[in-house]
């Protein structure tokens, strides 16, 4: 199958700041991809490039289209949610539905109405009268009613409380996602959504630090927790990251056979959050 997104050597500078210093990655259809990086890593810039919202250098095909020159065609099949504050405050829920129906050939009003009927949002409610969580629900209702092939979410739950966040991702996974669709998601709250991802792309300083499917992560990375007395032997196997936890040492290994490590201590698959921290903080001190 052809890739949903193919990026080759994307470069973008804001003045002297390099937001993207040559980024390359591929996203296959039917995946839920986490684009993960610290603040200022270039996540939002990468997303803006994908959506054709900002000029950049490099090669980029999204659904086979160039976002720079074919943006209007692209947006028929791509949905985008930035953080919660982008629906205009004067808009009424009913107007939002009217508008979507008027401009989007793939919008199915009944689906959005059905979704809204399960919330506290009335069609006459204005965005300014809704809580942050409800605004996100409204936006989600609009997005879910569009038959899109790619959904791009940039920190969609920023500033929401845990209940709304959980509900948001549950809805996304259960009512929206299927094998025909692809979701690209950036977030700070990696721990909360890591079970959602099928793939992760770590970026840092405008570069890709790691790109992998979650399955492969389990094969390639191992976390070993050892007692202090075993630490020296474990270090000989060259972990790329280590930290002390309650007097024991947790180490992360790349491309090691489990049999080598098992005798030394407890072995398990690292969480995406652990791996992220390890990758961002760089190699272990020697």
């Amino acid at each position, binding site marked *: 199958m052809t890739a949903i997104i193919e990026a080759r050597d994307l470069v973008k500078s804001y003045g002297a700041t390099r937001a993207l210093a040559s980024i390359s990655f591929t996203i296959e259809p039917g995946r839920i991809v986490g684009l993960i990086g610290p603040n200022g890593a270039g996540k939002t810039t990468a997303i803006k490039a994908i959506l054709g919202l900002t000029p950049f250098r490099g090669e980029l095909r999204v659904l*086979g289209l160039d976002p720079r020159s074919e943006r209007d065609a692209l947006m028929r099949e791509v949905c985008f949610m*930035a953080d919660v504050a982008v629906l205009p405050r004067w*808009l009424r829920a009913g107007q939002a539905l009217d508008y979507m129906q008027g401009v989007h050939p793939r919008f199915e009003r009944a689906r959005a109405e059905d979704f809204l009927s399960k919330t506290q949002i009335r069609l006459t409610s204005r965005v300014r009268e809704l809580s942050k969580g409800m605004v996100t629900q409204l936006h989600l209702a609009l997005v879910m009613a569009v038959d899109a092939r790619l959904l791009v979410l940039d920190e969609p739950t920023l500033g929401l409380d845990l209940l709304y966040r959980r509900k948001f991702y549950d809805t996304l996974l259960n009512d929206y996602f299927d094998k025909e669709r692809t979701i690209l998601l950036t977030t700070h709250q990696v721990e909360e959504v890591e079970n959602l991802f099928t793939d992760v792309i770590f970026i840092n300083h405008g570069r890709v630090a790691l790109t992998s499917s979650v399955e492969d992560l389990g094969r390639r990375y191992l976390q070993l927790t050892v007692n202090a007395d075993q630490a020296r032997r474990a270090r000989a196997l060259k972990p790329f990251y280590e930290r002390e936890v309650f007097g024991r040492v947790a180490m992360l290994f790349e491309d090691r056979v489990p049999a080598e490590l098992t005798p030394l201590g407890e072995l398990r698959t690292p969480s995406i959050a652990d791996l992220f921290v390890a990758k961002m903080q760089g190699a272990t001190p020697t």
Partner: protein
Amino acid sequence: MNTPILESVAAESAPAALPANAALAHTLVTLIRREFWEHRSLWVAPLLTAALLALCAIPGVARFDLGMVHMHTNAPAGLFTEEQRLGMSTIVQWALWAPLYLVMLFVLGFYLIDCLYAERRDRSILFWKSLPVSDALTVLSKLLVALAVVPLMVFALALLTYVVFAGIWQANVALGRAPAILAFDPLVWLKVEIAMLLGFILSALWYAPIAAYFMLVSAWARGKPLLWALLPLVLTLIERIAFGTHYLYNFIAYRLGGIWRTLSQGYVQHSGGLATLRPYTLLGELNFGAAFLDIDLWLGVLAAALMLYAAVRIRRYRDDS
């Protein structure tokens, strides 16, 4: 690489989809409705003005003093000739139109300065741009609101206001509470309406570069678009103080009022007095031909097109939200 996707779009949406032109028209109508949701002053202000004007027909609400006619309720019937009463009707028709026109200019000025700035200020541009609507169509919809939809709406409103005003007035005449100073002739009425409509069209074309300049500022300014929009006026003062010249002032004054001078060339204002009161249809008296053929009118339209193109480009490639 493009074709499979484009074909699949066409194949999937073909049965239910509207023909391309109808879909485009549908989108445009939606975009225009959107402007009225956001900028409610576009219809509220003219509507309130029209209501106030119509209320003036109720005796005692307003006092009319046209210098030559003091409208007392006890004015005897037959004081005026038919010709004079027709003239009075046309004066009323124009007098109800003028405030509406001025309110419209005022409201549209603020609208244009805000229309591409507000969406950046509240970051809703990220929502609008997440939908399959091109920047050109968005800018076009806002221009159409300012130069066609609102003027036509105000034109219709002026017509309605006159009908209501005349209706209230005549009812009071029948009840003996207002003087019978109005008379009606469909042809005279129609001529005035046509002159008004031509005036609206001429106004839209003549003010197109100012509208486009406001939209350009609205798309471009990082903050305070109102100040940027009014900057040329400040520059006229600076020019005057620094160089003692009035080139910019003259230019702006011309772009504001020039076409109305062309339009009224050869029109002789009759001095007041009942003797000269006659229908002011203005259709034949005003020089519409010369005004519509004015080269500066069309140069202005060209300048407007260039500025709008720039506004579209800025909205397309600007990245500060």
